[in-house]
């Protein structure tokens, strides 16, 4: 699988999905997304943090300082109840978008 640019506006969805599996520090979020996309998505590291902070400010994630696996001090982000609800909505919207795009581009017909 080759690399792909993430679509504008989807970084927050990816982050919410990553932290929905368990608390992660920033670098962990990055690794998780790369891992989940099998290395297809490479995220600009400097852009990750503003996105995380924005989510935190909107109460979609919460943060806490703790120790990482390599015993370094790191800030861990966990999804909040509000974040889970938002993730559900966004996944649904994304599915509808993919379906619609697929229909327009004739992908579904081809697949059948």
């Amino acid at each position, binding site marked *: 699988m080759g690399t792909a640019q993430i679509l504008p506006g989807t970084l927050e969805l990816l982050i919410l999905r990553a932290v929905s599996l368990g608390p992660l*520090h920033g*670098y962990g979020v990055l690794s998780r997304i790369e891992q989940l996309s099998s290395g297809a998505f490479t995220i600009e*590291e*400097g*852009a990750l943090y503003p996105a995380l*902070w924005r989510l935190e400010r909107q109460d979609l994630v919460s943060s806490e300082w703790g120790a*990482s696996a*390599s015993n370094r001090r790191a800030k861990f982000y966990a999804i909040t109840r509000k974040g889970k609800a938002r993730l559900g909505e966004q996944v649904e919207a994304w599915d509808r978008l993919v379906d619609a795009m697929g229909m327009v581009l004739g992908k579904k017909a081809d697949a059948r």
Partner: protein
Amino acid sequence: MRPLHALFGWVDRVTGRVGFERNMTDEIESHIAARADDLEQTGLSRVEALRQARRQFGRQIRCREAGRDISRYRYLDELHANLRDALRGLVRDRSFAVVATSVIASVLATNMVLFAFLDAYFLRPLPIASADRHVELSVRGDQGRWRTAWPLNDVERILTDDNSVLERGYAFTTRRVIVGGPHPQRAYVEVVSPSYFDLLRPRLMMGRPPAADQHGRPERAVMLSHSGWKRLTASDPAVLGRSLLVDGVSLAVVGVLPEGTGGLEPVTPEFWMLAGAADVGAAGRAPEYGIAGVLREGVSVDQAAAALTPLVRSFSFAQAAPSATQNPEPGTRTYDARVELRTTLLRESRELQPLALSLLLLFGLVTAIAAANLTSLHLARATARRHDLSIRAALGASRGRLIRHLLTESLLVSMVAAVVAWGLSVASVAAVQGIVFSLVSDAGMTMLPVDVDGRIVLAACALAAVVGIGCGLLPALQTTKMDRSLALKRDALWLSGTVSAGRLRGALVVVQVVLSLPLLVGAGILVRSANSATRVDVGYPIDGLIDLRPDGTSARLLDKLRSVPGVQAISVVSSTPLTGGMTRMSGRVNGSELRLGTNEVDDHFFDTLGISTIRGRVFSASEAASRVPVAVISEATARRFWPSQNAIGRTIELEDTEVVGQYRQYEIVGVVADVMSGFFFQGRDANAVYRPGGGAGSPLPDILVRLDRESATSMAALRTACGDVGAFCEPYSFRRILAQQRVPFEVASLIASGLGFLALGLACLGLHGLVRFSVVQRTREFGIRQALGATRRRILLGVLVEAVRRVGWGIGIGLPICLGLSAFIASRVPIVASFDPVAYGFVPLVLLAAALMASVFPALRAASTDPIRALREQ
């Protein structure tokens, strides 16, 4: 900028901003370290791994910027940046900074001084607990008579009533006494009941207030006010226990109040003493006291009045049986108690309301003029900065952000002005107080010092903020209302915004002229009435006329005074002219009952004053000595009661001063010229009845002396003559009495002309700014016109005519408003003329002349435009 950085450094620490920044750094560093750990495992050295991790992270600075934009510190950053820019802008454009600051500071300072006075006397509660329930008692009779003072035994019936509606009541009266020593001097004393101090609970500089002993006997002691301590004891630090000789009675000093504190009265006396402790200052009459106190909680003034009415009806004055001749229907005369709130030093009164109203109106007008001026200044500045603003807009600043940017500057100017105004008002409050209360201080009394306290400074800051935002908002909205695509061209394409801004400024000048007209006309009217007050004719020559103010009169003293060189004539009177009016007495003329002004005078009175006899004669020495029931009346009185008839030989009935309710008949023997007996602004007496008196059996309290020439030596000679016969006197010239009465008018005209000049200055400043601005804006136009053959004179005239036209508009709109306003004020303050042709004619001319002066320099600049340079520059 360094103080600004320091300030924001402090703000950052207080708001947790420092922790926020540290967290961002830690998180980014932790990310880079984690990435470097992974890279190290691919075989890179630690140093190389860290370098690569940093490179991969990208520009940290942008990450942090984005973090700050998201955080709640964004507005703080914006404020910091805006303040920094505003400061730089003001430093660059110093003339704007100075003019705008002066405009606001001058208006803020005048408002602060006004409110310092209003606050001290009308707004600040009395220095007691439950000041909101502090009341004073008076008694009204059904025939318009009223009383506010009663003998002590009557008063005590109310003060000691267990079921009283008063939670704590006290008796009070003010007396003038003579405090002895090597240099005896007059002093004011407040005589109160012990409960006064229970209520006031004064914090003393030293000692304690006087108290009653266990049997209720008042202590023969005094508590000095700070001014009394300074004046009567020369600030003696060991004054406690020493005694003060008051009207010959020795009283111990037991306490001294600190500076700036007083009692419950607007005029601070020299000292306080207890009622009944010593008979001082009463001049032989039985002392009478007023009643005040704090109402019980939940009792209204009407309930209190209803509860007190039966008590006051049992007072001795109400019990005095009216005679049959005077009151044919017994029992019809009734008295009701009236209870009025006085929660501040001065009670709100109908007399003071129009004064306060006019003052507020004047100050409001000046503030409005300054606001119009400031708006115009900000508009000019914002228009001049449009290039800078459009660059900001092009770089992505929203309109809101641009408006916030502009408002920061106007707020900053306002706040700097508030600080300047604080200094100005503190400096001027003492000076203004000195002038305003010179009348009182000349009479030996002190008023509580008025100060600009924290509340006034806060209020001024709030006003400054409102003015800053209010005046900055319109220009900010106007200037940012522009098309961004045209923004960077800096050319005539911007004209739309400029033209409407110019029109707005023109309208603002008209507004300033309209608003300054009433101020200037009002100032003109007041200055003229103050001027006419200096030329007032009281009806007799006042040069050389002296009010001796002795502590008592005796034949020996009069003889001694007659022998003083330079003394032409001497007279004894009961009510001194020009010091408050004649004694009002009930009288009957031609069968109708009415109040008449009366004065008891001796046979020399008319000669001494120089009042001419019109018909009949004045009193003879024997009439004065034996108080024969004859009377001399004024011309106005004769005209009123016997128009076109001879008043001589007719009779007037006057209330008997000794037998309550009895009337005495007086035969009129003479008619004299009308004079002023009351305060000069009350005009000549509407009616005046002179009765003979001053004989050995009925000495009159005051002595008038006519000197051939008034001088310090002759005054000293009079004082010495009094001292020689063991008397005390305080010679006071009528010239000085009249001058003191003029003080309020002079102060009013001073305030009004001060405000008027401020208004004129502001209006001219606004006009000058406008003309200068429009000339700069139209440089290109003038260049083209000159190139096309317009003469310099024509351009100069064009600019001047435009300025005059604006002022003309303002005068046209302002004059009718002005006429309405002055008619309104004149209806409330009768001594002010409603229409003064001189003020009305003069002021528009002054405004026009000032407008021409203000615009002539910019107009000359317009006329001297070099067409080639003008066209090249633009």
